[in-house]
């Protein structure tokens, strides 16, 4: 039998320690199915590490993969801080990508100094606007935002598919459902020659610092934290709770929209309906793994990205499916959730015999 007893306050070092422990535990636990698949665990993890850090190319690939994860992770973290459960980063990412393509494929032509920021802003705005609906439904009518944001993901994805099959289809695309390519003047510049890593990473890092600063040092951040930690007390103290939710919703959606901008204007160059392999959902894992800390999000995103990129590389070498990456990521989330229990409670194991004796 297990008995739980509540614990007192938790130190920051302990919070960070728990995130690391959860990541390590996930890697260890994932070794079990690897053994079943007949792999040598050390060899497999060695291949994964090499795939993520083994060369400059591997490293930049990992950073490229981390870029959208940082942004969707921030989107989840900032919303969850206010206890606004935005599960719709995936849809907001596509909305951002769609807006970026709409602006960046010739709607306006201008110098890159004007056009690139216009593309970025359009994407952020689109993501934010998508989140505005669920937020207003929550504050006005009390509609559960988990349901609305989650379902909007499918609505938006279907809308994107419709646009790609119809009005935004590339006439030169050989019939494939994809958009016209983004103009060179509208694309996010590369950070390194012959590598795929792009300016989206800089945007993501600046956003992480920005969100950190917002939460820590501004009145808005103060209000976001107060509403998230105790909405009743915040309301009682005269903090505009509805306005705070709307603000958080816009910021969160905009961050997810930026992830879409990076993918389409920095990496792929055009929009397809398989732009994101679930970055929006992985962002939730990133945020949870980071303990909702914006700086932590950067590190958690790097961890998750190296798992994804490393597993791809390992699967090419060994023939084991790269679903293993999803397994580790899922395991990491479970470990974080379980470790939350250890943070809040002391766990005692109670002997079965002692129980029986006194029971009757």
């Amino acid at each position, binding site marked *: 039998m297990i*008995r739980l*007893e509540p614990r*007192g*306050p938790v130190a920051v070092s302990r919070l960070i320690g728990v995130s690391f422990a959860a990541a390590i535990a996930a890697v260890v636990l994932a070794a079990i199915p690897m053994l079943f698949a007949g792999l040598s665990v050390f060899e497999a993890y060695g291949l994964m590490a090499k795939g993520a850090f083994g060369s400059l190319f591997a490293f930049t690939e990992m950073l490229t993969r981390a870029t959208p994860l940082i942004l969707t992770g921030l989107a989840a973290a900032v919303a969850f801080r206010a206890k606004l459960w935005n599960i719709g980063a995936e849809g907001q990412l596509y909305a951002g990508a769609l807006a970026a393509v709409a602006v960046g494929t010739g709607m306006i032509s201008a110098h890159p100094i004007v056009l690139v920021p216009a593309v970025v802003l359009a994407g952020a705005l689109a993501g934010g606007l998508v989140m505005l609906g669920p937020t207003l439904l929550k504050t006005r009518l009390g509609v559960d935002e988990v349901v609305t944001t989650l379902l909007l993901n499918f609505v938006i994805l279907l809308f994107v598919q419709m646009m790609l099959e119809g009005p935004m289809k590339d006439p030169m695309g050989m019939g494939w459902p994809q958009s016209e390519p983004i103009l060179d003047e509208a694309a996010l510049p590369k950070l390194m020659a012959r590598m795929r890593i792009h300016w989206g990473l800089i945007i993501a890092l600046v956003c992480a610092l920005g969100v950190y600063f917002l939460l820590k*040092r*501004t*009145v*808005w951040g*103060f*209000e976001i*934290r*107060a509403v998230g*930690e*105790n909405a*009743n*007390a*915040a*309301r*009682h*103290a*005269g*903090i*505009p709770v509805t306005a705070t939710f709307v603000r958080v919703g816009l910021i969160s959606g905009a961050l997810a929209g930026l992830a879409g901008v990076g993918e389409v204007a920095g990496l792929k160059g055009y929009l397809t309906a398989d732009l994101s392999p679930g970055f929006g959902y992985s962002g939730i894992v990133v945020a949870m793994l980071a303990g909702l800390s914006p700086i932590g999000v950067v590190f958690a995103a790097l961890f998750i990205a190296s798992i994804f990129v490393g597993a791809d590389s390992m699967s090419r070498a060994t023939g084991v499916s790269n679903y293993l990456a999803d397994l580790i990521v899922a395991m990491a989330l479970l470990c974080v959730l379980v470790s939350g229990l250890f943070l809040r409670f002391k766990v*005692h194991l*109670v002997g079965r015999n*002692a*129980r029986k*004796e*006194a*029971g*009757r």
Partner: protein
Amino acid sequence: METDGSQAVPILKLDGITKRFGALTANGDVSLELHRGEILALLGENGAGKTTLMNILFGHYVADEGKVLVGSNDGDLSALEPGSPNAALVAGIGMVHQHFTLAENLSALDNILLGTETLSALKSARLPARHKLENLMSRSGLTVSLDTRVSQLSVGEKQRVEILKALYRDARVLVLDEPTAVLTPQESDTLFATLKKLAEDGLGIIFISHKLAEVLASSHRIAILRAGRKVADLPSDGCDQRQLAELMVGHEITETVREPNQPGAPLFVLNGIFAGQGRDVLHDVNLELKSGEILGIAGVSGNGQTMLARVISGLETAARGSIQLEGVDLGKASVRQMIDSGLARIPEDRHRDGVVGAMTVSENLAIESIREPENQRFGLLRFTELRERARNLIKSYDIRCQSENSPARLLSGGNIQKIVLARTLETEPKVVLAAQPSRGLDVGATSDVHKRLLAVRARGAGVILISEDLDELLRLSDRIAVIHRGVLSAAEQTEKLDRGTLGLSMAGHSEEDAA
């Protein structure tokens, strides 16, 4: 009383119980005995360790040291398995929590049966159970309509269901946690009469309280806890309130006195307020608060006090009626506008509405004024000023905390209340709404709250004091009105009132009934 024979062997014995939470010793080497037919009052301030001790007894916590021994019917003591509520139930320990644990949508009978029978046996168990309960009710005087849904029972009746639930399970020891907190004075008298009868039948009873008068009137023996240790264990005969209070606090107590004061002009007026629905409603509430006056509002919990406080706070908009502060209409005002027009609010549930536990003391001190220029510039927080102001307030209001950067949830209830007092009173408000300002606070913190409220009155502001504690109301208020089922009576001068008449109007009897 047939207690003389069995007095030698206790029915329950706590032996050297020690329980630590980190650095805090919640219970230090506490030993306690309870005999058949005895009513033991467990007295102590908040945080003295009463609830922890009872939670150990009932198996919610495991003691670090010491053990719980239960006497069997043949008189020998055996150790109770630690950490198992089920073992406590089997051993005949019944607990009535302060917050009832009843399923509102089930009948009283089903609530009592719940958990005693398997689902398949539930139907066939009802008839014998009914007989047993009717027998119990006629013996103890705990009458409840067994087929009524719990949601339709009054608070006193719900408590009787809880007690019956324990008795139905053949409890030999009954523990009641603050049983009178939700009752009118008359209901409390009935409860204690019942408990006396049950004790005469051989039940051992422990009740937790911090109300000295009822402890003296209703117990055989009093055990006093202070800072986790038992400081006294004495027969109730021959004790007086002052002695108990000083044992409880550990030092001498000076009582707060209300100086005579001449109330000034009307300051804050409620006119024909209707609000809320269901149980928490206001029905045509009129109220006039003068400057330099404390207006008390008495009532049994759940008679509309919460809604009244919410309306005055600006959290709820009245469906009808007007609110005026110095002639300015605040009927549709938001919380922000209420604060800005000089209305300070002390919420009844300070943990829920008063502070954000995860934020620091300094942040909680500034939360109502965070958008004021002294706290922010261009939307950026002014940390130096925030910290400095927090330090000053911590000093002048004697808030006990490690530093201004400690999370507020680590503070005791009294210190959390001081945070609320500090941030609301430092702006020199014109009207202070104090809802249950000393609920759950110890003697020291309570007298601090009282002094602050009297100081507000002394400088010419008005105070609306909503309380369930009649002693507090009678001591502080210039006038008292009673709220019952959402209707507020006209306020009367405190000098013309006493506990009896107030109790009757709290129970809904008009003055004509009383005469």
